[in-house]
């Protein structure tokens, strides 16, 4: 019998069966998150299913992140309904301003290596960076697992992505994710797991791995899992064993990426896989620069953007710079180390930690004809709340470079022209 991938091993442990790619298994769920986009419907399903009690309330958490703060009467009513349900059943609520549910799942220690961690949101794949099997589910799934603690899952086949080398200066994890999207397009990994491996993994910090796991869903993947190592243990503050794939595990495809030669990438409107090297798009005017989201809203992202902005002398006239930290903890760190003050002095609009403008549910909505460059994961038409705006996706440094010049620019050029600000 052949060896197993990380995903097959975790789903075997959680189902009690010898789970192989293609099998459908029923698994015990270790932790699950619902946000204010998905949970109100889950509560409707819960009632319709005849649910009375939540089986393991401590394994469930609700995040108020999509409408933070609530921009309308209807959305504030959704929040009230979630809070009432949570209080009645002993479920923790991450309140408005605490941050994006995905970031909080990772920060809070609710996700550990080898666990099955789910979220009623497609970007729940993010937690795979911590060596968990993590995937997005629907509202009805969340309702059913609140009732019975379990979920049905098809065991995915796995694509192996082997990383070699180390990112050069001015090139960031987002560029790896975009290069991968270019290769796999929107459906190259549909129904499959992506397992990251190879010697290049060791050079990536936990925050870097979160960017890659976060974006696998844009290629259709069910989950994007990393092995556990010392960096995983250090991030969690506890030694962890982790789950490794077997030498003879079966992969449907192996992709090798040499980070040494990677250049800054950019996704053009309106598809994530419409990726080109940033030099190809240089000179395109931008009017809004968005720094934030569950892809690019962490401390290292803001540091990278701040460095480019300072080197370039600040924000160009006519550009709106929007800063939305992924969590309060991120905001606190940026406040303590002076980064937030730098952004404020540059005229940035500072938005409450949460999903912000990313999916047009609240925050700053771009105007008609506006080009946005964003650290987010999706650039679909209408995504940020206005279908007459165009969204480009790039690394925090590349977004900052566009803010400096008012046009899409290679961030490595900004550093070369350093001048005192």
């Amino acid at each position, binding site marked *: 019998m052949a060896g197993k991938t990380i995903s097959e091993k975790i789903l075997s442990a959680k189902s009690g069966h010898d789970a192989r790619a293609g099998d*459908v*298994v*029923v698994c015990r769920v270790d932790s699950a998150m619902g946000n204010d*986009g*998905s949970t*109100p*419907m889950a509560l*409707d*399903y819960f009632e*319709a*299913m*005849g649910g009375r009690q939540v089986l393991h309330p401590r394994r469930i958490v609700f995040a108020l992140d999509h*409408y933070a703060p609530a*921009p*309308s009467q*209807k*959305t504030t009513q959704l929040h009230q309904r979630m809070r009432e349900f949570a209080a009645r059943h002993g479920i923790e609520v991450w309140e408005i301003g605490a941050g994006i549910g995905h970031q909080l799942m990772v920060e809070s220690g609710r996700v550990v290596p080898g666990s099955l961690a789910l979220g*009623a*949101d*497609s970007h729940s794949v993010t937690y795979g960076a911590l060596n968990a099997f993590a995937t*997005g*589910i*629907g*509202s*009805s*799934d969340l*309702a*059913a697992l609140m*009732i*019975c603690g*379990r*979920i*049905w899952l*098809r065991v995915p086949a796995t694509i192996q992505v082997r990383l070699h080398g180390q990112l050069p200066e001015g090139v960031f994890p987002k560029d790896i994710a975009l290069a991968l999207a270019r290769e796999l397009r*929107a*459906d190259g990994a*549909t*129904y499959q797991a992506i397992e990251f491996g190879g010697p290049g993994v060791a050079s990536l910090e936990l925050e870097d791995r979160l960017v890659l796991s976060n974006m696998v869903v844009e290629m*259709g993947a*069910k989950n994007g899992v990393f092995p556990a190592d010392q960096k995983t243990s250090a991030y969690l503050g506890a030694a962890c064993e982790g789950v490794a794939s077997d030498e003879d595990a079966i992969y449907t495809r192996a992709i090798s990426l040499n980070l040494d030669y990677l250049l800054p990438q950019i996704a053009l409107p309106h*598809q994530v896989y419409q990726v080109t090297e940033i030099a190809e798009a240089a000179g395109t005017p931008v009017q809004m620069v968005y720094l934030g989201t569950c892809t690019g809203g962490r401390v290292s992202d803001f540091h990278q953007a701040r460095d480019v902005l300072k080197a370039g002398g600040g924000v160009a006239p006519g550009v709106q710079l929007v800063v939305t930290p992924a969590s309060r903890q991120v905001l606190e760190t940026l406040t303590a180390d002076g980064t937030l003050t730098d952004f404020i002095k540059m005229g940035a609009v500072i938005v409450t930690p949460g999903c912000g403008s990313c*999916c*047009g*549910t609240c925050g700053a909505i771009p105007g008609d004809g506006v080009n946005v460059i964003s650290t987010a994961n*999706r650039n*679909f*038409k*209408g*995504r940020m*709340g206005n*279908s007459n705006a165009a969204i480009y996706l790039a690394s925090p440094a590349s977004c900052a470079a566009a803010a400096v010049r008012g046009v899409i620019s290679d961030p490595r050029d900004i550093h070369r022209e350093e001048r005192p600000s």
Partner: protein
Amino acid sequence: MTGLRLDGRARVFGDDINTDYIITSRRKRESLDPQVLRQYLFEEVDARFAASVEPGDLIVAGKNFGCGSAMEVAVTVVLGAGIRAVLAKSFSRTYYRDAVNNGLLPVMCNTSRIGELDRLVIDGTSIHNATTGETVTAGGFPKIMLEILEAGGLVPYIRKYGDFGL
């Protein structure tokens, strides 16, 4: 495949139709009611679609239908418009999952020769195009998905069994 037999008019879309194109996130702010949201169905790709859809119509798409967000309203709004099945070359996994869980039949088959308003008959794994006379074969479902679909979705399934049977 289920024993379900459906027939209806094909309403044809292309590849990579994401859930924001099916129903935009901003519309969800005001209501989650499929009967309200159906008036905005597919507005980003075809502003006239919502007014022209008829109960019993069948969505026909290319590859990767329902990619993007996992939001389940992208399934319930389709059901709310009276559509009982989506035929596509492939689906995003979250859309496929949400469809099964809500009793919307996701039919994976070769859709490249189906034209707008063709009359289709779905009978088990056979998809007959009465307009062109062609027939294509769809893939089947694993046991648990079939049980959920035959129950009419996860709500009646959990009401009946209280847990998953496997």
